[in-house]
């Protein structure tokens, strides 16, 4: 069974490799902007703020990851779960206050 599956998948890859039409042209071979004529240069600089925003996003993303399962079994967890999660949110809140006061949330 497995051999048949591997065989079919392999054969398909091989066939498309040998039979498929191939056109190589300059734009296609460039790794940037997927075969289109380049509109902008790939070597431009962009603001470090994007990284900051990405990091803040990860923090609150993780918070959501924890909040969903917690919300699902909120009843069973009881008071203990509630207090634990409040401490967690409080600590994240401290982080938010910190980045806010530091001015990291302002784009300009």
């Amino acid at each position, binding site marked *: 069974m497995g051999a048949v599956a591997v065989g079919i998948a392999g054969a398909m890859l091989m066939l498309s490799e040998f039979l498929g039409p191939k056109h190589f042209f300059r734009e296609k071979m460039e790794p940037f902007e997927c075969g289109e004529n380049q509109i902008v240069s790939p070597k431009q600089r962009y603001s470090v703020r994007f990284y900051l925003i990405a990091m803040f996003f990860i923090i609150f993303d993780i918070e959501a990851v924890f909040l969903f399962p917690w919300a699902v079994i909120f009843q069973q967890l009881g008071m203990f779960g509630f207090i634990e999660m409040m401490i967690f949110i409080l*600590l994240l809140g401290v982080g938010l*206050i910190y980045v806010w006061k530091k001015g990291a949330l302002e784009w300009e």
Partner: protein
Amino acid sequence: MASIPVPDISLGAIAPEITLALTAVVALMLEVFAEKKGRDHIAYISLVGVIVACFITFRLAGDPSWTTFSGLYVVDRFGQFFKLICLLGTGMTILVSVKYNKDEGIDNGEYYALLLFATSGMLFMVSGSDMITIFMGLEVMSISLYALAGYTRKRARSNEASVKYFILGSLSTAFLLYGIALIYGSTGSTQIDIIAKAVSSGSGVEAVLDLGIVMLMIGFAFKVSAVPFHMWTPDVYQGAPTPVTAFMSAGPKAAAFAAFFRVFNVAFPSLQADWWVIIWILAVATMTVGNVIALLQNDVKRMLAYSSIAHAGYILVGFVAGGALGSSAIMYYMLVYTFMNIGAFAIVTVVGRKGEEKTKFSDFTGLGYRYPLMAVALVIFLFSLAGIPPTAGFVGKFYIFMAALKHGYVYLAVIGVVNSVISIFYYLRLSVMMYMQDEPGEDLPPLVFAPSLIAVMIVAIYGSLWLGIMPAGYISFAQSAFLAL
């Protein structure tokens, strides 16, 4: 609906870590809410947090060992002893940092918050009785250290140190994690006492287990900077701000050794016949390479970095010896090393002046006449690092080599002694330069000794001398700490 049972949680057990983390949060909040002028209070508040954590750790040390958090965390004397070493290192580092940070314009709350977060990670690491706890602690510690290494962000060298440390550190962490995964695959647990049972009963898959142990060893060897995994150490130690270097060379190393020792002696004692050879080779290579390359250095920070590699080698000798004697020797040595090394780095921060431009050997010439007390202090630290009696370094080394001899590792002890003779050369070279050469002609502003720095030096001199003259009390403390493991 049935409520989910709460696992046994003893917040008292992790009270030192909680104290440190809360102090770090307070430091962060003070950073954003307090006035921009006069930031010393953040340092002193952090210091108070460390001292409170010390007291709690000390109180916990009295009890016999017990586990909590479903076996993830163990409270025992072995861990508490190493925790006190880490806290000592942090406390001294905070004091060294006060003036340095002001000179460099980095006296921010974040600096102290990062120090405290790193310390809480270390404490988790030394008390982890589960690979996951150890890994979490290691990551909290390492990530804070990556940021700290590049804290003087306008200095190119500091940036280089940070990036190097980050890349090599994450690589080594990957090794460690892969080792944990393989061991879990073989034995079915991440908890070290359950792993021990599976290993001794031979129920695990042997090839996978062996590979896992080797990976784990590589990961830890990176963290304690054992040769051939030491390449990052000189560049990182030289590039990082000097107080951070002092910090990195003491606490994190102690924590890594504690976790290393705990994992190998609790989880894999039945395979000791297999792994001691690897550690033996690591120990010999680490001592020899560290000492020989240190001979050629012209920068004091770099010399101290190689000397710290060599000292990791001596500690690995104690690791090979193992048993009650070997482990208490490691503990005692780590304690002594914290005192003398941070003391030496404290003086480098003073002599280095603003911007750390004066850390060459030649910048230390003639200091013996202009600053006699400071020179005497540095000589004490250097003699202690070299292991010359009556300093604490001598007792520490004596204890380690005695442990190796008692357990029949005669060649290892001989190589260790030969190495410490080699090391005397470069420690003495610096001392000789301070006393026997004239000062360079250029006119330099006088060195400034802040009160906090004098306090560190007094503590460090106390440690380096008193532990050498009256070692009995501390040695019996270290021995009792082992018995509980």
